[in-house]
């Protein structure tokens, strides 16, 4: 995996007394202490974070936690006091903190695009002129610019609106213009500073879905700032939680939910519905931890209601439920199965916990088996595994 953006011990201080503040950061002082002693505002301290190509890395935290500050260091909208921000620039790696103006401008025009919370559209320009802003600044000839702008407007379903002014559009549409403007530069790295926070919940969900759809095609590297954990869990492949300018925890969404690093993170996830994050993989018991019977039979649950006979290749040869032969069917088909037949459902590691629970519900709380890509048996989920994951016990 290639690294797209690498923050290395980034400190950002706003104010005159940089040296004094940095010394206090080294001594581990909090933001309030630094403000009182030096009058400077601590933006973020000692932030190290690696963002790989093609991933959506979400920076999370309450307002004032330094998440936007860190994001804006990537294109030097905020000046870094100490540390490195390495950004992939074609085959090279550029340190944004120390690079010259010409390099910075090239990065901003070609490598790093940005989407703003308040959209940042120019009100005297039409939609297409707004989308073409980045290309215009980079000196792309008009014919090519028109063509690329048109393509982006089609992508976000705004081609009917190209001649309108920004204020004639709804908030959701304005942000789609903002997205198109960022995509139009074809920059591989996208900075999104709470892009959907100013929108109402329905539109927000819709735009999140659209972003995920576009991302599946475009495979950008996205750094996304949000204060909404549901949003972060939905779109993030990695989540970084910040508090008072410092990074508290970084990890995959389910890591954050299952293993919060401290009380701050625990408070954060307290109201999160675990069903929206957890997958079958997160809650299963491994095959080796299951109770083995004779002749290759394995009990799927502690109550010993269901067992599989596994052959030498790891495939299921036979299934039994309450002592009677049973069929095994995929969770994906749970809706279409008649309930009379004795059946055991199986899932893939990526199947959501919600689907697994539905399968349990349909099969009178029978355990759910887990198969890998080659249909080999890897583990099972019993009702107790689900309950403990949901209750986080």
């Amino acid at each position, binding site marked *: 995996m290639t690294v797209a953006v690498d923050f290395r011990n980034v400190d950002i201080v706003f104010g005159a007394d940089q040296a004094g503040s940095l010394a206090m950061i080294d001594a581990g002082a909090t933001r309030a202490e630094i403000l009182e002693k030096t009058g400077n505002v601590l933006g973020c301290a000692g932030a190290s974070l690696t963002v790989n190509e093609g991933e959506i890395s979400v920076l999370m935290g309450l307002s004032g936690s330094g998440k936007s500050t860190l994001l804006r260091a990537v294109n030097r*909208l905020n000046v870094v006091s100490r540390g490195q921000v390495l950004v992939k620039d074609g085959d090279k790696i550029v340190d944004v903190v120390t690079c010259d103006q010409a390099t910075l401008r090239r990065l*901003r025009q070609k490598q790093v695009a940005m989407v703003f919370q308040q959209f*940042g559209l*120019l009100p*005297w320009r039409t939609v297409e002129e707004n989308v073409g*802003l*980045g290309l215009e*600044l*980079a000196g792309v000839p008009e014919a090519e610019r028109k063509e690329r702008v048109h393509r982006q407007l089609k992508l976000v379903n705004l081609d009917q609106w190209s001649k309108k002014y920004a*204020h004639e559009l709804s908030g959701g549409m304005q942000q789609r213009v903002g997205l198109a403007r960022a995509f139009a530069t074809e920059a591989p790295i996208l900075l999104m500073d709470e892009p959907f926070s100013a929108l109402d919940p329905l539109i927000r969900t819709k735009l999140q879905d659209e972003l995920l759809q576009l991302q599946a095609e475009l495979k950008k590297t996205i750094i996304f700032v949000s204060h909404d954990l549901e949003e972060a869990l939905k779109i993030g492949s990695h989540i970084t939680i910040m508090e008072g300018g410092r990074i508290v925890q970084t990890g995959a969404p389910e890591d954050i939910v299952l293993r919060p690093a401290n009380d701050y993170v625990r408070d954060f996830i307290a109201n999160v519905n675990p069903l929206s994050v957890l997958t079958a993989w997160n809650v299963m018991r491994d095959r080796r931890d299951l109770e083995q019977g004779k002749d290759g039979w394995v009990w799927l649950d502690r109550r010993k209601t269901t067992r599989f006979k596994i052959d030498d290749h790891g495939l299921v040869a036979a299934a039994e439920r309450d002592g009677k032969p049973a069929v095994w069917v995929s969770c994906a088909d749970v809706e279409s199965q008649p309930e009379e037949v004795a059946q055991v459902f199986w899932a893939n590691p990526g199947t959501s916990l919600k689907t697994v629970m539905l399968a349990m519900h349909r099969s009178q709380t029978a355990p759910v088996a887990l198969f890998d890509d080659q249909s080999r048996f890897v583990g099972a989920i019993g009702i107790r595994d689900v309950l403990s994951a949901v209750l986080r016990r």
Partner: protein
Amino acid sequence: MDPISQFMVDHKIPIGAWGKAFFGFLTDNFDTIFRAFSNGLNFLLDGLVNILLMVPPVLLALVIAAIAWLLQRSRPLAIGVFLGLIFIINQNLWKQTVQTLVLVVAAAAMAMAIGVPLGIWAAHKPKVYRVMLPVLDLMQTLPTFVYLIPVLTLFGLGNAPGLIVTIIFVIPTAVRLTHLGVVSVPKSIIEAGEAFGATKSQLLWKVELPSALPTIMAGLTQSIMLSLSMVVFAALIGAGGLGTEINRALGSRRIDLGLEAGLAIVVLAIVLDRMTRIGVGGKK
């Protein structure tokens, strides 16, 4: 007089004398330069007036109405402009009106040409603005008559000193409104420009100036109105036009003449105001 006041009066700071000495120094040493400048300017202004007066008045009124239509795309406005100018011709004040028009447009144009760059500079450099502010206050509050005198001694009588006095009076407005316009460009759109890699000059031309344009245009309209308000003063030092008529009416207590010339100024003011309201209201 009490002794303390007497003491202070005895040691009066000779500001007046210093000022007089300064202007005396200028006239003694650079008189030819100032006079040459003044003569050149007079020649230009008079030439322009004469060219415009060679055009038949009704035709010129039509041309101005056409310009109004081009600027604002409004038929009622063009008709109104034309009727207003016809009224002036009817009052037999056309020659004076053209003189005033040339003076006002030249003064406003010069004030904008100097004031807009200064305003942009001040908006980008808060320190510059702090230094500039008291100077602007001085230019606006010092009674006009006070600087009529040195301008008169330096440049003599005529249109040129009238123009210079008017420009001095109007520049602060151009500077202030430009400064206001550029300073109040929303931070979010400046950052959008920066984030997409704008150079300093791209940021100015593609983000700051378009955003500040309505305020700057309000500055132009204000400059024209203030220039018009100066024509009576400018007439005191020999600038021709409607101001001269009003001064004459005042001197000979001619209510009729004063009313006619005053109304002509009002008509001219309304015409210029409506014509220059670009980007204010209308389309955003």
